[in-house]
């Protein structure tokens, strides 16, 4: 590569006269991860200016154009399906770092989900912790107080015993590290982790997924935008210092994992919650006192993305003095400072007159700050290094990025379904309860402080204290003086999505609705975390397109907007791609938390109802997986029914006639009822004969959508049946065991202690 020193640590890159080979070399040597076409576009631009770029300019452009920052492969698809679903309540949609939706007259809730997959695969503890740190910043930078965290996680099977690929760590090691990272970060900053998923599938063996979501609350008139629309506003960096951390982290997130990933150490950070915690206070206090003009957190892409996007959005430019940035390591080059992803930093735009107030807040919270530049009327970015200009470009060119209409192909589905011999029910039941995707996640849930802040009024574990079961969603009561609550849940169904990405996506939206409705909340909005393989493969791109199509259609039909989201591509390792994994963080509103419902059975003698119709599409079911039967038929969702049934169920709940409710998902009806019995520490007796006519094992284990189990007191039975149309009486609560028959034929009778043991101990063997 041909370069010339301009000042200390800044070089001119010989780009104007570079041939194709040299262009590729430049991209490789500087670690830009740009394609030849992109390099040519850059060359053309500088030919127009008639000069060579500095290394800083080249890095700045490469970063603006990275997959992570520009969404170059996904934008066209997202625009087509995900964006623009109309909603009355959404206030800020897919614009700033997190979505903002009306909560009540005065307040809005703010939330987003994001992935931190590659860093967590390489260093689970630090990767997961920084993932949490990052998503907190996204919510904080809207001026919102973070009030809950969620953490959907995806690993290879914990009992994996074959040889591991080089550089790949065992799922058990990864699970322990990831959970510890989330725990140590989330607990220290004092934000409760109230929901999540822990999902196991062979195809995550080489490439785990660590997603994290954060929910916040803000007064509507205190919402802060990531926009500066006036010249002469000071740009202030507050919080941690800038170091070499995460350099090339953004490009790293857009690259494929291979044996050498362990060498990408710079991209790994441990996260510092004890810097973040005071930073949260500082930002909220500054916002309360009205001195923040605009704000953006430093996430993937560092200062480069932040200043560019913030000014571009407001139609102004900026002048930045990189020598003013406080450094961890003194010998950093300007380009490193510009792209550094050091955590725990915020860029706050303030007017001169408010500088003293910001300074005294920094003093109180013992945090460093430095004024690094100010906004300018012309939409240009000019960067100085010890008073010498080292970057001078129109903002448009850096931030506009590139877009690709990547070719895709959609896998044709051959529909087939084997019919396995009828199972031994008792044995199967216990096997299902101890299957990793169903078994108790208590070991994880309790390591997270899910009650700090005192607002978690429906907990992730529900029922008799000491014998709790899984709930479907947690509820936060964000305001001291209002009964209104926010329900939060996360869902994904990679098994079904792998069979049929489109149907799987619709199923996921249905499950989000099921979970929210199960606790008595009306679904309000969604954030989508889209984790996929390498989009340069047509079939993977096809999976992405089909998933988005399904997500879009389902949400549109239900009137649920996606207000924020994240795409993570290149989840490929050793030639293997992950299954399409569309994770949703879903939010519901409950007007009065006193009407919230939990999943544990309450009283002997109460009736048990199945709400919704059961179908025999067994593709992707836990039952078929356990007995190794094949089916490619994914469960079909009738979205009209999702809407109608959830409305009627919410209506019944509002009338106070539902004592407990659990949605039917993994393991089907049988597992849902078993979980309710475990949580209530009371048995139940079921007769399946009134269900639609089909094989008994399908009645018990089908995972067909839009179904719930409800407990209703006998005196409310009639009313319940008239309010909830598709309800079938299937049994009653009582005794100390779960007894099930289909007509005259008894299927099993298992003591609840036995059920609980299988369910509770399955994962324990593999963890800390």
């Amino acid at each position: 590569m041909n370069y010339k020193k301009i000042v200390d640590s800044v070089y001119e890159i010989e780009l104007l006269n570079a041939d194709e080979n040299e262009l590729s070399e430049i991209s490789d040597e500087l670690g830009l991860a740009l394609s030849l076409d992109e390099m040519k576009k850059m060359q053309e631009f500088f030919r127009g200016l008639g000069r060579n770029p500095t290394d800083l300019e080249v890095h700045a452009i490469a970063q603006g154009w990275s997959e992570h920052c520009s969404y170059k492969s996904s934008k066209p698809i997202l625009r087509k399906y995900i964006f623009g679903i109309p909603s009355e309540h959404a206030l800020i949609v897919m614009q700033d770092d997190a979505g903002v939706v009306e909560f009540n007259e005065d307040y809005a809730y703010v939330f987003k989900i994001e992935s931190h997959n590659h860093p967590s695969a390489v260093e689970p503890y630090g990767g997961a912790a920084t993932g949490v740190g990052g998503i907190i910043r996204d919510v904080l930078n809207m001026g919102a107080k973070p009030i809950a965290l969620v953490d959907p996680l995806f690993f290879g099977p914990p009992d994996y015993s074959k040889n591991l690929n080089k550089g790949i760590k065992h799922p058990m090691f990864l699970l322990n590290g990831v959970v510890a990272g989330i725990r140590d970060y989330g607990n220290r900053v004092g934000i409760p982790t109230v929901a999540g998923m822990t999902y196991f599938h062979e195809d995550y063996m080489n490439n785990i997924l660590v997603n994290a979501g954060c929910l916040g609350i803000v007064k509507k008139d205190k919402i802060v935008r990531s926009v500066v629309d006036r010249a002469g506003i000071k740009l202030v960096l507050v919080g941690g210092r800038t170091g070499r951390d995460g350099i090339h982290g953004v490009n790293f997130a857009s690259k494929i994992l291979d044996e050498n990933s362990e060498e990408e150490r710079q991209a790994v950070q441990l996260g510092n919650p004890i810097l973040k915690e005071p930073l949260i206070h500082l930002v909220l206090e500054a916002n309360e006192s009205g001195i923040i003009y605009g704000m953006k957190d430093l996430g993937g892409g560092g200062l480069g993305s932040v200043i560019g996007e913030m000014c571009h959005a407001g139609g102004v430019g900026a002048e930045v003095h990189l020598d003013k940035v406080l450094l961890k390591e003194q010998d950093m080059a300007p380009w490193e400072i510009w792209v550094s992803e050091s955590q725990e930093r915020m860029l706050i735009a303030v007017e001169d007159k408010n500088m003293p107030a910001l300074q005294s807040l920094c003093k109180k919270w013992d945090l460093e700050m430095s004024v690094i530049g100010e906004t300018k009327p012309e939409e240009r970015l000019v960067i100085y290094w010890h008073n010498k200009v080292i970057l001078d470009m129109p903002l448009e060119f850096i931030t506009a990025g590139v877009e690709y209409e990547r070719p895709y192909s959609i896998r044709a589905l051959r529909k087939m379904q084997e019919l396995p011999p009828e199972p031994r029910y008792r044995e199967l039941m216990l096997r299902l309860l101890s299957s990793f995707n169903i078994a108790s996640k208590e070991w994880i849930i309790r390591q997270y402080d899910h009650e700090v802040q005192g607002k978690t009024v429906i907990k992730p574990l529900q029922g008799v204290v000491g014998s709790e079961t899984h709930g479907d969603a947690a509820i936060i009561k964000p305001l001291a003086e209002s009964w209104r609550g926010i329900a939060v849940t996360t869902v994904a169904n990679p098994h079904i999505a792998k069979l049929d990405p489109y149907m799987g996506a619709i199923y996921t939206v249905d499950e989000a609705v099921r979970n929210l409705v199960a606790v008595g909340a009306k679904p309000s909005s969604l954030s989508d975390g889209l984790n996929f393989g390498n989009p340069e493969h047509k079939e993977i791109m096809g999976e992405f397109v089909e998933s988005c199509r399904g997500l879009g259609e389902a949400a549109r039909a239900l009137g649920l907007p996606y207000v924020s989201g994240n795409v993570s591509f290149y989840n490929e390792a050793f030639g293997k791609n992950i299954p399409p994994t569309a994770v949703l963080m879903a939010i519901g509103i409950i007007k009065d938390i006193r009407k919230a419902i939990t999943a544990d059975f309450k009283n002997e003698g109460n009736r048990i109802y199945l709400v919704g119709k059961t179908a025999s599409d067994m593709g992707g079911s836990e039952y078929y997986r356990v007995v190794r039967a094949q089916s490619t038929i994914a469960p079909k969702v009738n979205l009209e029914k999702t809407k109608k049934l959830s409305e009627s169920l919410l209506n019944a709940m509002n009338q106070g006639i539902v004592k407990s409710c659990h949605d039917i998902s993994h393991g089907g009806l049988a597992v849902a009822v078993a979980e309710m019995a475990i949580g209530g520490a009371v048995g139940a007796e079921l007769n399946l004969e009134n269900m639609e006519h089909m094989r008994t094992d399908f009645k018990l284990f089908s995972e067909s959508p839009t179904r719930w189990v409800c407990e209703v007191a006998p005196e409310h039975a009639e009313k319940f049946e008239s309010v909830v149309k598709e309800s079938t009486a299937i049994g009653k609560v009582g005794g100390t065991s779960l007894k099930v028959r289909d007509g005259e034929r008894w299927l099993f009778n298992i003591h609840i202690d036995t059920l609980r043991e299988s369910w509770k101990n399955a994962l324990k063997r593999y963890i800390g």
Partner: protein
Amino acid sequence: MLKATIIVKLKDGIDDPEGKSIKHSLNLLGFDSVVNVHVSKYYEILLDLPKDEGEREVQEMLKKLLVNPVIHEYELRVEEI
């Protein structure tokens, strides 16, 4: 009986928030002369094995559980006791 003593440290260049935070606290307490703090884990593992086998075994433990080569380096001493 063997005793393996292992110190697991963060590699140079990996930011150590724990060490930094402790340094900051020490400075605030008036220990101005503290320039840097690093915190590491110190394991003592007793093994019922002959020496050479023990050493191999401990190397395996480091690999499988105690050390992530991406961020850690370690010092190891195995002695008969």
